[in-house]
């Protein structure tokens, strides 16, 4: 039985640039989208149409200009993303939403292994793992994503783009959260690693997660999608 996890109603986003004479940049308008557990929604449309913006609105990284976004964690109460307190949003990110951004942004000096392990050590006592247990799980993720063992103890700042992207994926997927937002997770990966990501998405869906993704490579998009949504339809009045 699938349940409704995400509901967007009449969502719009525009940017106001105060230092460009208050110029308004409309990006999205009238986004209506429901996503249920077990789905993989692939966002299509040419670049600049607001695909990344849509993910950032769901993650509450960007603020809504209008409309409503409601996220209902499987065992929790619905959260109104636009009006939720910062503390509630942090909890939502910790427990419910995993977001793979296009770039890895982490504190310098922290080894790759600990960066991947970190999400498992966060949260209230009882749900958080000890660092050693979390590292044990992190090792299996680094292995699956073919990060050579000699890199595990190094900070990822000097890694290649593809290696950083895989650290980012491992760090997000290590915690089995119900809603995954993936912004071009395979952009710098070779075919073999892209296949691993496809498998990981299938696994996440089969445990009941919902996935919303952007994939530059349309073949990968087709391989993972249960549904395609063309984002350019949300720009009619934007």
């Amino acid at each position: 039985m699938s349940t409704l996890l995400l509901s967007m109603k009449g969502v719009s986003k525009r940017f106001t640039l105060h230092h460009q004479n208050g110029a308004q940049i409309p990006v999205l308008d009238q986004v209506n989208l429901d996503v249920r557990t077990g789905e993989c929604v692939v966002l299509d449309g040419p670049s600049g149409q607001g695909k990344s913006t849509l993910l950032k609105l769901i993650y509450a990284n960007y603020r809504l200009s209008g409309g409503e976004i409601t996220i209902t964690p499987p065992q929790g109460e619905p959260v109104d993303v636009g009006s939720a307190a910062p503390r509630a949003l942090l909890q939502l990110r910790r427990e419910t939403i995993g977001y793979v951004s296009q770039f890895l942004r982490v504190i310098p000096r922290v080894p790759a292994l600990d960066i991947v392990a970190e999400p498992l050590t966060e949260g209230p006592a009882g749900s958080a793992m000890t660092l050693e247990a979390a590292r044990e799980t992190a090792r299996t993720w680094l292995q699956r994503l073919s990060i050579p063992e000699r890199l595990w103890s190094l900070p990822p700042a000097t890694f290649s783009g593809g290696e950083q992207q895989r650290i980012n994926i491992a760090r997000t997927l290590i915690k089995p959260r119900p809603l995954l937002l993936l912004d071009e997770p395979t952009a710098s990966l070779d075919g073999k690693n892209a296949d691993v990501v496809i498998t990981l998405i299938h696994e996440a869906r089969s445990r009941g997660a919902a996935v919303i993704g952007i994939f530059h490579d349309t073949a990968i998009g087709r391989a993972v999608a249960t549904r395609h949504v063309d984002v350019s339809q949300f720009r009619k009045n934007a």
Partner: protein
Amino acid sequence: MKANDVMPLPLLSVQGLSKNYAGRVALQDASFDLWPGEVLAVVGESGSGKTTLLNTVAARLQPDGGQVLYDTRDAGLQDVHAMSQARRRLLARTDWGFVHQHAADGLRMEVSAGANVGERLMGLGQRNYGRLRATAEQWLERVEIDVARIDDAPRTFSGGMRQRLQIARNLVTQPRLVFMDEPTSGLDVSVQARLLDMLRQLNQQMGLAVIIVTHDLAVARLLAHRMVVMYRGCIVETGLTDQVLDDPQHAYTQLLVSSVLPT
């Protein structure tokens, strides 16, 4: 999930705080709540009132209006400015910490590192020399200072070591809230990264709440969960750190964020 699990009482509630200097408004109607374990960054240009806000919240300055409520361990939410001076001092030396920009303002530069770390514990009545020294050794290790330096005075330490010693001196009583005024600003970039990493670990391991004043948006990005932006004595924008930095709403915040040089 019960509502109480999500929203316990805040650790600190700042309500309508104002402060004037000789008739000039330094801080106007500042309000925010802070919960256990949260790191809040206060950013803004110099003269915007961020240090005044920090000092007034930390009860180092008396406000001209508003109040600061803190969830004390023994008596729940209390107005810190209405407490007796003795009680306020005890709070500042046990359940709070204050890390200054210049370590010389927060350390005793002529006494040993070990005595600097042990001072708060002695103030609470601990007299057993062996136990004080063992605790000091543990804390030096924790902030990555060679234990062999325990008898040296901090004036012989580098800037980064002094800042780490200042942190150990504050954290030895297991406070729940630490105030920090530009703690990384005088340090080399590599030393800064090490300190940031350490602060983040301590925040996570101890469930420490932190209010950190910084002009460095990269420091705020890496360390803080939430941010307040100050401009001309007022809080003009608040939000999750990445919201404020990636989608700034106020004209001043947009200027601040767009003025950062790319790295």
